[in-house]
């Protein structure tokens, strides 16, 4: 490999790394969801917590992104909202990630 080809590959890798970082940040922005007038992240941790609490009680309390307590009175609806938003964001990230490999073709 000559130095020109190496530079080309390096630049391409850099562009892909930046694109991936931006796509991930975009997904993180989309994971933020407002429910019951409070702000949550529809991430794996929140989904797992809500699912676990839902198995033990019909009503429970969780913390929002500002560490304020929120009473959840409809666990199924909340969980559904979290999962929908999570999959929307990650699915979009997945679509974007498929284009990374095509760059430079």
């Amino acid at each position: 490999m000559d130095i020109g080809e190496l530079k080309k590959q390096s630049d391409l890798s850099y562009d892909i790394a930046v694109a991936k970082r931006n796509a991930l940040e975009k997904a993180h922005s989309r994971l933020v969801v407002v429910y019951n007038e409070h702000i949550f992240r529809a991430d794996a941790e929140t989904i797992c917590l809500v699912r676990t609490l839902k198995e033990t009680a019909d009503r429970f309390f969780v913390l929002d992104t500002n560490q304020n307590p929120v009473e959840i009175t409809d666990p199924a609806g909340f969980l559904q909202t979290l999962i929908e938003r999570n999959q929307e964001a990650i699915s979009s990230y997945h679509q974007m990630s498929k284009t990374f490999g095509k760059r430079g073709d």
Partner: protein
Amino acid sequence: MTKGVLLFCFDTAEVQYHRILERCVSLIKRNLQLEITVVTNFETFKQLKPLGFINYKFIEPELGNTKNGAEWRNVDRHMAYELSPYDVTLVMDIDYFPFTNNLRQFLNTDYDFLVSKDAHDLTNVGSFNMRKWSMIDMVWATVLIFKKGPNARRVFDTVKYVKQYYHYFNEMYRIRANNFRNDYAFAIALQQANGFATYDTMPLSIATLPPRCRVIKMTNTGIAWQYDDHINYTEHQDVHVLNKELVDV
């Protein structure tokens, strides 16, 4: 409860901000679908193409602030509370382009005042580590949401006070920039009004293209840019553009 977007737009000798506003309004209508009020002056208003149903409020902008040697008409943000006709207001810089409806949901919270503390540099250069330039965490007044009431009123009253004695606060917090920045004025006001303790924030990292980054294409769904010899793009992601040459794209 009424909800809407409040924008400030004043042309300067260097930048035709009204052209940036036209793009921003188009995206707000398309993606946020909220009523819009534009705070402007008559000279800028005359340059605007018809934008459909928009409310206008005319003021004479306070002059005297500069950025990189050019006139910067950014000093009137502290009047957002009085100028907004809405119960819940989303105040946005006109160079913040909402390619998604992400912001709309924040008008439905029980928070009285929300602002973001973080920015994401889309060029990956890491231009926005602002903490080292002052003794206070900066907020990004690019996007802020407030609900009219005593708490939001207190924040804006404090911003007015900070603005009045900005030179003093600037020295006290050892802020490197000498010009007036809303980001610092709001950061200082929020800290002062909240007893020097923490305050609630919007958990968004504002995706931003730094000033040295050139926008090469902009559509209804996304934006492409060039930084050094790298070209990149994003779609369906809100973007704050700091290079005002985008009016020529």
